[in-house]
């Protein structure tokens, strides 16, 4: 699988973006864009057309659910959030998210999950 897939990392915490980015970089991925809030995420999804989006849910103003509502179903999104409740997962999926990763995650878990969808 090619490692130059364009990956958009959306999280209001620069720390969480950095951790995720390092995980992907350690597996050889090179092409990243980042967004620190929901509005920026929607803009970058429209302008940069990332192959995959890793999306935080709880963010100020425009949250992850709003982002899912705002971008339609063409984009491949995996939600990453510390919220683990079942209804949240169901809601995200109903809004078009492919899957759900719960914080705290570990490297292998993220890469495994990503790979499952990247390869499709």
């Amino acid at each position: 699988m090619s490692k130059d897939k364009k990956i958009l990392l959306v999280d209001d915490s620069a720390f969480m973006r950095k951790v995720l980015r390092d995980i992907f970089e350690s597996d050889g991925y090179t092409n990243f864009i980042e967004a620190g809030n929901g509005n920026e995420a929607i803009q970058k999804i429209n302008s940069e057309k990332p192959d995959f989006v890793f999306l935080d849910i709880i963010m100020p103003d425009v949250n992850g659910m709003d982002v899912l509502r705002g971008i339609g179903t063409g984009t491949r999104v995996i939600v990453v959030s510390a919220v683990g409740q079942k209804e949240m997962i169901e809601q995200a999926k109903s809004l078009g998210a492919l899957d759900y990763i719960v914080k705290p995650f570990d490297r292998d878990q993220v890469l495994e999950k990503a790979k499952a969808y990247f390869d499709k």
Partner: protein
Amino acid sequence: MAVDTKKYKDLFCSEADDQLAILSSSLLALEKDPQQIELYEELMRSAHTLKGAAATMGYVAIAELSHAMEDIFHSAERGAFTIDSKIISLLLSAMDDLKASLISIREHDTELPQALVIKEIKNVLIEGSHYAGAQVATEVNHDVRPAHIVAPDTIKVSIDKLDVLMGLFEEMLMIRLKVSSLMGPAVELVQSIEDSSLKHQLFFIKELQTTFVDFARLLSENQGVLLSIRLVPLELIFNQLPRMVRDLSVRENKQIEFIIEGGDIALDRTVIDGLGGALAHLLRNAVDHGIVSQGIIRLSAVRVGARARITVEDNGGGIDYERVKDVALSHGVATKEQLASMRAEQVAELLFHSNMSTTEVVTDISGRGVGLSAVRWFTEEVGGHVDVFSPVPETGVGTRFVLDLPISLATVRVLVVQVRWYTFAIPLEGIIKTLQFKEGDVRDAAHQETLFVDGEFLPLIHLVGILKLTFGASPVESSLERMRSAVIMRAGESSFAVEVDECTGEQDLLVKSLPPVLRSDKCFSGSALLPDGRTILLLDGHGLLAHALSDILRHTSS
């Protein structure tokens, strides 16, 4: 544990600080006006973000505590209970515990246990509006202890202000030099006075001198501190380079291992400023034209006395000297005759010539010239120099650039020398010793006078010839017995002797860069002001030696 906590510690703590600040101010706002429902959102979000980050770092206590807090805000938002001042006191004391835990993480890489406060917060969730307040919390309320207001132990200062401070300080140093040069004659004058009553009246001159010595010492200590404030670790620049090298090698489709060493060495901010651009030039050259398809580029820094030696080395193809000559010829940088007599080092020197750095030339000589004149300009501007070795002597392959830079822009201790009517300064760092010799000690070997010093013959260089000093007569007719003076200097691995008429004495001088008209003259490394206001030039060992060697070559070839 999820991640390498040491690696992310700073980022985590700085974001956690932000979240704690938001939580504290929102709690205080909520206490004033419990009806502000939108504050719950804010509080939940902050606690949630903190929880996620802490869990990712493996800080379970912080994660659990922020989780419990998030639950409180969640329940309160749903109307299960109102967050009253008792609960706010508890939550604020939880803030204090979290702050302490962050300090512990910063200092000892370990979080603090939070079991008590977590238990108390869980009580709130169970008891709701019946919560009677915590013992800890009420204690906090009654016995109002001084708040945990900790001023940061570092401050940011703009580099402009430091430059102004430096400028003022340099003026103070000039005054010190001036006073110090007046003090000597004044003391001597008093000592020479015969009249004992007058001499007695002038006792204060001696006092003045003692006081001045104290003042001068304090000024020196001050200078040390001021200069150390301006030091910045090379890491600040080095850290940005792996990404650049990576991108370049991807673009060029080359396999390059990039090694960095010595990023902890600190240099004056002014030196660091231009260094990034210079290193970018050298690394781009190494990637584009040094490495053929795969190889190693090594960037290293070592400290040598008051100077830093920064090396960019590749194990690639090395410089194609014949092509450099071709380009130099076609661009009028050197004549056929000059090129014919040049040794490899001198041909390599041509790369730094500004006419060799045009884009057109660049493609001709596979880009070796790109920006090298800019690199040289930068190093000389800050009082350093740059050398190129290709192939690298130890390995026989590749190219090595060595930047020799001052660590700080300080005063330089120099020897002031007199040649005819001219005064020059030689930095003590480049001096091995001074000595006296006689005509009889000089040997003429291969169109170059040499002086036998400590078991070896050193070239004897005459400034009058090299610098074309036309004013002032040579001291007395030469006789075999007349004592002459020489300064034994070193430049890199080579030593040589420079004849001078007189060594006037040592001084601390503030070195400035050369006026642009003199930059092309490699014999000088900088200029400085003498206490009497005269500007003098600093002699550069590398330049003098190169000049002398090219003179020899001219004689040999003619």
